[in-house]
């Protein structure tokens, strides 16, 4: 293929210029492959730090592999044993296993008890250092150090900010079907460190505030569904607004100062925005149809939402002041629960057609609609939200799961929701272990 293309260009140039002129070549196609990266366990000057060095390297390998843009090479294939972060590696030993990037690191407990981790990122082709940094924290925060290292490597190589040092808030469910316990839960982006924030009462659709340690969610604790704010530092919960009607589907504006939500009145649902500083409420839609599921654009100037004003559930965009609502989804089926990516270049949504549910992405003008491949066709994405730094979705997927054959006569299909993280460009999915999760959102 390369030969054919260059042959054509050479023939075209021959008649025009002398034989000594340089060839001009345009490369306009490529295939995207994950970058092979070697991350050996970090060195430890003291034997006591050996497990920290191994654990941190293991989390960095997993973070980068999970992003889909890197392929973390198996440490068992490594030929060279690195001698600490200040030694220059012998790059031939890493080229031979086809590594294109290499990370060397070291973990050292300081005299004050804190853990210091140094690392260097090397370009194996050029044999030069791309990055060198150091992080210090209390020893039990070693996972955060690993995620910060992953963020730094990711950003240096892709140019994009990493999202590994982020958290997901979601509702985890446990207990028997008749007495389900739903708890507001926060966990690291890789599924580690789950922490329960609430207990007992019914809580849905939690969302992080982009700038503060605060979560907005909907709760039935007062008997009717209402939007609440939960301050993570004080643990205080506060109802938003004094409405007699149901409020739900809250989302923060990018600057954290406004919450957009749906208010139901007499069977009609409309979108309202509340300014958190003045607590004033402004109505944004006034159509007799059901308007819901609002999400801000990253510059805060527009809102994407779902409406059935055209006869079926579709995706619309309007100004943040409610002006100029216009439809952007025109594909077949019902399209809803839209979410705007933090980069502003994509809107994710769910599409229901011919009995199946799928997740799709499109540009904000509605063009370029496509469905990244999702494993099980019979999944119903419940709620979508984008990672703060990247177009990665945590979609809460209700998977229909066949019950095991048991002696019990009841063989109804049981729903097992889970948190799934999806890359909308590559279609790569990642499922989190553990039971029953619903409605997640990323924290920056």
């Amino acid at each position, binding site marked *: 293929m*390369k*030969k054919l293309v*260059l*042959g054509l260009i*050479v023939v075209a*140039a*021959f008649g025009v210029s002398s*034989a*000594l002129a*340089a*060839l*001009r*070549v*345009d*490369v*306009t*196609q*490529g295939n*995207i492959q994950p*970058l092979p990266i070697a991350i050996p366990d970090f060195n430890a000057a003291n034997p006591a730090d050996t497990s920290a060095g191994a654990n941190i390297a293991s989390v960095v390998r997993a973070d980068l592999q999970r992003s889909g843009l890197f392929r973390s090479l198996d440490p068992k294939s490594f030929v060279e044993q690195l001698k600490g972060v200040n030694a220059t590696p012998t790059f031939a030993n890493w080229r031979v296993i086809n590594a*294109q990037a290499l990370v060397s690191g070291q973990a050292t407990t300081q005299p004050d008890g804190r853990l210091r981790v140094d690392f260097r990122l090397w*370009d194996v*082709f*050029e044999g030069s250092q791309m990055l060198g940094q150091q992080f210090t924290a209390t020893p039990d925060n070693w996972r955060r150090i690993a995620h910060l290292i992953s963020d730094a490597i990711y*950003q240096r*190589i*892709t*140019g*994009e900010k990493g999202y590994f040092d982020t958290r997901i808030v979601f509702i985890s469910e446990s207990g028997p079907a008749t007495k389900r316990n739903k708890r507001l839960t926060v966990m690291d982006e890789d599924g580690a460190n789950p922490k329960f924030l609430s207990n007992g009462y019914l809580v849905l659709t939690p969302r992080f505030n982009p700038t503060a340690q605060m979560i907005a969610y909907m709760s039935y604790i007062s008997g009717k569904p209402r939007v609440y704010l939960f301050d993570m530092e004080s643990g205080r919960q506060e109802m938003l607004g004094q409405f007699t009607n149901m409020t739900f589907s809250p989302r923060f504006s990018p600057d954290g100062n406004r919450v957009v939500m749906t208010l139901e009145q007499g069977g009609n649902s409309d979108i309202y925005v509340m300014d958190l500083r003045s607590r004033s409420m402004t109505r944004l839609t006034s159509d007799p149809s059901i308007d819901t599921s609002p999400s801000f654009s990253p510059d805060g100037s527009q809102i994407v939402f779902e409406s059935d004003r055209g006869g079926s559930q579709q995706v619309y965009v309007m100004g943040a002041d409610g002006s100029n609502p216009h439809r952007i989804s025109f594909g077949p089926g019902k399209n809803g629960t839209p979410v705007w990516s933090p980069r502003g*270049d994509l809107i994710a949504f769910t599409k229901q057609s011919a009995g199946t549910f799928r997740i799709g992405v499109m*540009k904000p003008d509605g063009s*370029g609609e496509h469905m990244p491949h999702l494993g099980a066709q019979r999944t119903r994405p419940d709620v979508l939200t984008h990672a703060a730094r990247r177009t990665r979705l945590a979609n809460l997927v209700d998977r229909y799961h066949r019950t095991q054959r048991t002696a019990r006569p009841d063989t109804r299909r049981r729903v097992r929701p889970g948190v799934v993280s999806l890359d909308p*460009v590559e279609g790569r999915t990642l499922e989190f272990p553990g039971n029953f999760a619903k409605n997640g959102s990323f924290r920056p």
Partner: protein
Amino acid sequence: MVVAFILFLKPDGAVARLPQLTGDSLARARSNPNTKAAADAALRAILTCAPYKLPADRYSEWQEINPLRFDASQVLGR
């Protein structure tokens, strides 16, 4: 986003020396991390795909490729 290199090849199609960014690509790569990432990826691609199968009797025509332009916008379809 476009990054451009100068590539010198040996008669067997191997890369003669490390390709350099040309024109305004170097300045743009220094100021923009996304351009730098694209340039790094293009450089890795050039080195990974070597050696190149090109007609040996026409070496004088392809020993210098200038510019070798990578247009990333088409690769991702957006």
